[in-house]
């Protein structure tokens, strides 16, 4: 019995260490943003918001932040509409064409984002678009945001009681009215979650944006990357802290609405 308990304790120590490894860089980024000194040291040199002030005064960082938020907002709307329509379609069809389309929808997540960025850059050039910018980024981001919407909304739709839609139709509602009055209210949680995932995916994307960003159209991650190649102070940590705060909010929201584990394990 003693040996079993020791084994169990040993196992738990190992898993706690792994979770610590997973969270360490995030904790470090937040500490670094709140630290008074230029370099994070132990013991820390006290709390300060000076890096936040620096960030707020930096025209390039604030410009990129605004651009990233605007881009993510547009992409969220586009991806949520396209993705929700596709999920509704997927629930009602079957056969080989359905599986082929499912693969095609997920494909942009399975191929390297950097490669998709290259392919789009070359394609836009072939079309004769001379400069990359907002439109290119919207297209590129939509490709990688739609799969999340389809996966999440699809999971929610699959759990729905189909007889409710049948009942509405039998009571005389047309397909559109049934959608507005029955399907939409029932899948609202899933659609919001899908939209939230799309927003975060776009806001944090680096790979697609790398080659598609242009003059005056630089998303925050690209701006940070350029900055980090040549300098090293805690200003990027501020952007990281904002990103981590957004993520924390998202996790709480999704957990409230449908439960994160429902996304991966099917039902709750």
């Amino acid at each position, binding site marked *: 019995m003693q040996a079993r308990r020791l084994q169990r304790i040993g*196992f738990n120590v*190992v*898993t706690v260490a*792994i979770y610590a*490894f*997973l*969270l360490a*860089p*995030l904790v*470090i980024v937040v500490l670094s943003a709140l630290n008074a000194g230029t370099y994070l040291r*132990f013991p820390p040199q006290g709390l300060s918001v000076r890096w936040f002030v620096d960030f707020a005064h930096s025209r390039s960082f604030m410009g990129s932040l605004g651009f990233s938020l605007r881009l993510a907002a547009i992409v969220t709307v586009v991806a949520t509409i*396209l*993705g929700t*329509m*596709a999920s*509704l*379609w997927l629930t*009602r*069809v079957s056969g080989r064409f359905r599986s082929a389309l499912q693969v*095609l*929808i997920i494909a*942009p997540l*399975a*191929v*390297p984002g*950097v*490669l*998709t960025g*290259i*392919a*789009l*850059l*070359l*394609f836009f050039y072939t079309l004769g678009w001379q400069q990359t910018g907002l439109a290119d980024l919207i297209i*590129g981001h939509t*490709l990688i945001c739609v799969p999340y919407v389809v996966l999440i909304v699809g999971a929610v739709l699959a759990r729905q009681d189909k007889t409710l*839609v*049948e009942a509405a139709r*039998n009571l*005389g509602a047309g*397909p559109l009215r049934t959608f507005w009055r029955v399907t939409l209210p029932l899948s609202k949680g899933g659609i919001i979650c899908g939209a939230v995932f799309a927003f975060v995916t776009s*806001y*944090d994307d*680096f790979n697609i944006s*790398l*080659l598609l960003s242009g003059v005056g159209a630089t998303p925050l*991650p690209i701006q*940070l990357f350029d900055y980090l*190649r040549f300098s*090293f102070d805690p200003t990027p*940590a501020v952007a*990281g802290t904002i*990103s*981590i705060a957004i993520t*924390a909010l998202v*996790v709480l929201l999704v957990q409230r609405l449908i*439960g994160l*584990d429902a996304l*991966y*394990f099917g039902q709750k």
Partner: protein
Amino acid sequence: MRPAPALVRMSRLPTVGHHLLIVPLLAVLSVFFVVPYANMVAISLMEASHRAAYVPVFTISNYTSLIESRFTWGVIWHTLWLGVLTTAICLVVSYPIAWQMARANSRTRAALMTLVIAPLLVGVLIRTYGWMILLQDSGIINQLLRAMGFAPLHLMYNDTGVVIGLTHVFIPFMVLPIASTIQSIDPELELAARNLGAGPWRSFRRVVLPLSLPGVMAGTVLVFVLAVSSYVIPQLLGGFTVLTVPVLVIHTISELFNWPGGSAFAVLFFVITALVIWFYLRTIGRVTHAG
């Protein structure tokens, strides 16, 4: 009296109107995903030029010059090696937490799941930056080592840093598929093995591990693909000392402006990666059938 309308059944065939739902997305994916990739393959078969992005003349020289170059093969090998190393470490680190997650009650599982997914939602750049603060020569880990009287370690701008960063970023992609297959294994099976006299290790090795193999395969393939195609991590944690295929491809395209050459390299590496995965899946299939 009006005749009652026929009752609607969901099993009936979808209408033409229903198919309109997929048209917009299908159009976007065809025009902005399938066509650009085809276009890239086409450009990889065109002549490079100093004056234009490419000259529309067919050639396979972009491929032959890559294949003949020892430098290219060195970079390819190194990239694949980093991918294999990352995948192996990810598997070892992820399996215990996947098992724990799958066997927890639904409350604990939701909490553990949040801990695994949350880092995934924070962009890769931010997480890499966190590792830069930790791993630098004057970083947190070396400060702690020095404070404890150990010699500092060189953890960044080399393979060590790149593999640490890659492992960290891709752990969730290993944990989730493995956890979902373990969860679908009936816990009674483990119990039965234990009751028949197998120790915990033996029952794990003979029951849980073989049954969770589909999840392991999915996770390893996913992590390998993501690891070999990563750009930010080798660039920031490897500096100029770690050269991988994506770094070299981006350099060729956006700094040397050799689009046909860069495209050819990307296509070549894509094919090599696919072959590696095909070979891996086939080998595992053989081994499990033989066992």
